[in-house]
């Protein structure tokens, strides 16, 4: 397993992902977006940050990168692809995931911890975690997922909602929703299940020192489930 971690101008979480995969013993390489050639890789990460300074819309300019063509090809070939935060925004802008991510309804940049319930196991990152509650950090101002009614019905009925913001009892309440996202949606998968996008940061909760280890449960899905003491 070798993971490509894409780096756009303005990406800020690529080294956190590299650190996380290092802890998990998963081979990885940070790849500059303009040179992206995903042949020779087994999975790809689109990390968080502010690609192109979020100019125009978050992810709008990054979607024109040569990396998007590669991501599209690799996604069609079934490659596991994970987009977190700005990576989720880029995947939506590129049309690899449905809907769009807009300004948080309360207009605040929210830096916090959230809980999510795993609603779909049909991704390489959530396999075996169905129904589990995961606690992860967020840091975003534009994480409110929206779509037209048909798209919402489609993602709900086809099981594409992979993660939903919930409270400590596992209930999707307005209070548990950090950004006003439609139906408390925190993460979505594509129809095939190999592409997952989520607003929270699994790479920032892979060791106790960072306040949580649930991110490891998601990322280790790519590897041989290397056991490292927490």
């Amino acid at each position, binding site marked *: 397993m070798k993971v490509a971690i894409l780096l756009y101008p303005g990406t800020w979480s690529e080294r956190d992902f590299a650190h996380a995969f290092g802890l998990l013993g998963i081979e990885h390489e940070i790849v500059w977006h303009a040179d992206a050639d995903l042949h020779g890789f087994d999975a790809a990460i689109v990390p968080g940050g502010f690609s192109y300074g979020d100019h*125009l*819309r978050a992810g*709008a*300019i990054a979607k*024109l990168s040569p990396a998007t063509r590669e991501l599209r090809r690799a996604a069609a070939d079934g490659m596991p692809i994970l987009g977190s935060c700005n990576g989720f925004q880029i995947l*939506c*802008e590129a049309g690899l995931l*449905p*809907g*769009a991510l*807009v*300004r*948080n*309804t*309360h*207009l605040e940049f929210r830096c916090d911890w959230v809980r999510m319930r795993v609603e779909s196991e049909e991704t390489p990152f959530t396999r075996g975690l169905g129904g589990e509650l995961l606690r992860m950090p967020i840091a975003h101002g534009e994480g409110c997922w*929206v*779509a*037209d009614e048909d*798209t919402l019905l489609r993602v709900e009925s086809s099981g594409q909602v992979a993660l939903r913001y919930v409270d400590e009892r596992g209930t999707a309440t307005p209070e548990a929703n950090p950004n*006003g996202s439609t139906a408390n949606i925190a993460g979505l998968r594509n129809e095939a299940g190999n592409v997952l996008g989520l607003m929270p940061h699994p790479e920032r909760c892979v060791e106790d020192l960072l306040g949580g280890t649930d991110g490891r449960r998601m990322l280790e899905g790519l590897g041989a489930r290397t056991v490292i003491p927490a």
Partner: protein
Amino acid sequence: MAEFAATIHVRPKAEVRDPQGEAITAALRSLGFDVAQVRTGKEFVVRFSAADETRAREAARTMGDQLLANPVIDDYAVELRAPARSVPR
């Protein structure tokens, strides 16, 4: 080739919430205005060359479709002017 200037107005679709517009509504009310609603948007003024007006209009729409607006959340309208020299630089 002729020079054109297109103004592309991008606004969130009617059914998409516009929290910035809501905040501005509240702010205008605090100034004493009897404001029912504010919808925000963006305006892009693009100077470019095209063979003729038809092509220019097509090009401006393609800019809207492929980059300036996100079809999931935005509507947009194109205003085309030529020649561009009449537009202040």
